[in-house]
């Protein structure tokens, strides 16, 4: 019951006029960011992060996490009305959402999507409330080898569970580590890999990489694919909302399945995108109307949205408890914590109780507020998309440039952002995943420190990562996840081999 007391205290922190205003602002900005192409959760948060440098950390994280919720809500709007996913995680929402809108049932689809998001997020937050403190208490026992093993687990699960080619995930990850190593070495004080450029002395800021890769890269790709915003009307009314809500309990099994998938994919960094596809796929397989999926089923909107939001929310659990983000946006938030001078990880729950519980309480309120705001403002945001692209595109690029500049007040960073934009364009076209790159860029220094400290303790012997049951089982789990596709393949082969002689 400790958690409930702490949570009530957290609500006390959040329920001030200033914080409620920040939540409102964050959610509105988040929906906007989620709706506009080229701006998504990770780089929306990255662009706005510099504005929060002067705020107290608790206020800053409340606003930024609300941008995150808003972006998750907003992604569904464009998917359903325009058949254009505003966020990668809402691609699966287009499958049944857009057909519904074509049949003039956009209101139902939107209500189902938002309510599904809300339910998924709520279960994610409940999980965080009760699990995160336990995980953090457990993680207090961790030393450098255990932490490196957990990092290994994170990265291995990206490679094994991700939807992209494993080698490409590895490349993305190693590029992140390489960039993180640039500049001053924290242990020896030597300058590494600047290749004669003094601007690289401080290394490459992850915010610049995020804004370039996700922002500029996305705009270039959007231009290539050609954009035609021919949206359906958002005919949403209180009557439609309540009618849809009344039918939701019917889909309880889908809701539970998708929530479980989402929570699992969020904690192990499979990501919201993978979770939404899995949620949709599983619902299609097990639902009674599974064969009608894709023609405009409310259930087909519900399943991916619940999973995506449950995953997006529970991605914050490992970030808070272990200092390891479960998604690209969580990685940006984690980078923010470090900038505000908070050391993410198990000690956060002891040393910054107010911050942690304020954030968790704001997740409950933020999602309730988000649901109400998004339901009432859909027409407004749909109207924004009807602004000609020749005005929206330059404004998004300008926002990215301002965001990149304000990180260190440096023009060099703006140039760097352009370079990352080109890299992002090619990587996206060739299906290199970007999330692992951001994750390893944020965690690079910490992972390297953990690795070197472990090596220092063991005098260069890598068996330290299997030296006791704790670190050993984490390492083993990491290896299982890394070779997961191979294991599944071998298991299937074994079964068919066994079946052949039987028949």
């Amino acid at each position, binding site marked *: 019951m400790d958690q409930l007391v702490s949570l009530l205290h957290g609500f006390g922190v959040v329920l001030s006029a200033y914080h409620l205003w920040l939540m409102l602002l964050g959610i509105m900005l988040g929906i906007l960011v989620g709706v506009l192409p080229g701006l998504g959760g990770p780089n929306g948060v990255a662009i706005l992060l510099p*504005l929060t440098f002067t705020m107290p950390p608790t206020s800053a994280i409340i606003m930024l996490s609300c941008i995150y919720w808003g972006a998750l809500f907003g992604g569904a709007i464009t998917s359903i009305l325009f058949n254009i996913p505003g966020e990668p995680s809402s691609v699966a929402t287009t499958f049944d959402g857009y057909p519904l809108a074509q049949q003039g049932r956009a209101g139902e689809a939107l209500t189902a999507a938002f309510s599904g998001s809300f339910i998924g997020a709520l279960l994610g937050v409940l999980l965080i409330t009760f699990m995160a403190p336990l995980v953090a208490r457990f993680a207090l026992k961790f030393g450098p080898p255990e932490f490196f093993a957990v990092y290994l687990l994170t990265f291995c699960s990206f490679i094994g569970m991700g939807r992209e080619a494993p080698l490409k995930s590895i490349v993305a990850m190693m590029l992140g580590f390489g960039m993180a190593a640039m500049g001053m070495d924290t242990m020896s004080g030597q300058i590494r890999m600047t290749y004669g450029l003094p601007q690289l002395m401080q290394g490459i800021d992850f915010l610049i990489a995020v804004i370039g890769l996700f922002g500029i890269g996305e*705009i270039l790709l959007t231009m290539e694919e050609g954009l035609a915003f021919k949206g359906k009307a958002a005919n949403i009314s209180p009557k439609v909302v309540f009618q849809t809500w009344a039918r939701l309990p019917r889909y309880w099994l889908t809701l539970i399945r998708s929530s479980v998938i989402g929570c699992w994919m969020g904690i192990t960094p499979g990501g919201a995108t993978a979770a939404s596809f899995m949620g949709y796929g599983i619902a299609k397989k097990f639902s009674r109307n599974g064969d009608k999926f894709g023609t405009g089923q409310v259930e087909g909107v519900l399943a991916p949205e619940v999973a995506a939001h449950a995953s997006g929310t529970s991605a914050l659990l490992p970030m808070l408890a272990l200092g390891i983000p479960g998604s690209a946006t969580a990685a940006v938030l984690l980078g923010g914590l470090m900038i505000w001078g908070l050391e993410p990880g198990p000690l956060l729950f002891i040393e910054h109780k107010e911050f942690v519980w304020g954030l968790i309480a704001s997740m409950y309120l933020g999602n309730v507020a988000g649901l109400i705001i998004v339901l009432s403002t859909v027409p407004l945001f749909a109207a924004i998309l009807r602004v*000609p692209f020749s005005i929206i595109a*330059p404004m998004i690029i300008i926002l990215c440039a301002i965001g990149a500049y304000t990180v260190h007040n440096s023009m060099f960073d703006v*140039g760097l952002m352009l370079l990352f934009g080109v890299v992002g364009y090619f990587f996206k076209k060739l299906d290199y995943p970007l999330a692992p790159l951001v994750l390893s860029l944020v965690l690079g220094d910490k992972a390297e420190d953990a690795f*070197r400290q472990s090596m220092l303790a063991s*005098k260069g012997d890598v068996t330290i990562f299997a030296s006791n049951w704790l670190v050993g089982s984490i390492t083993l789990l990491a290896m299982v996840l890394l070779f997961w596709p191979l294991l599944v393949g071998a298991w299937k082969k074994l079964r068919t081999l066994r079946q052949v002689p039987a028949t």
Partner: protein
Amino acid sequence: MGISRRTAELAVAIGIFIIGMAIIGDSIHLGIGWSNSSPEPGYFPVRVGGILALASIGIAIQALLDRSSASLQEFVSWERFRLVLAVFVPTVAYVVIMMLFGIYVSSALFIAAFMAASRKFNWFVILAVSVGSMLVVFWLFEIEFLVPLPKGPLETWLGY
């Protein structure tokens, strides 16, 4: 006939290989072994560079072996790529102008250029949107959030 997807895969793999080798080179320069019983600065990066180089070789081999139609397809058609350049080249120009004249003037020009190129707006709307949006940005950043953005001769002349 444009570039096939496979050629693009190979080109990116070669680029990644070069980056991997550059990291290894710099790490060897820094020292990849042990000094005074602690790992040297290049100890971790050399492993990163090594994995990077190996993975890029793997990707290149996969691309060469892949004879599926998807891999032989065109990476991007010239008509489509022109659209990408139509945004990218002005963006580069925008950043260069930003270095000389500050963010406000360059941004206003940038929006105006895009609107003019679309030929859907008359000059009055263009002027109103480009200057108006910059006034909003100025108010938001310089006055509300107290975040100074790069300024140029025009702002100095206006006494800011």
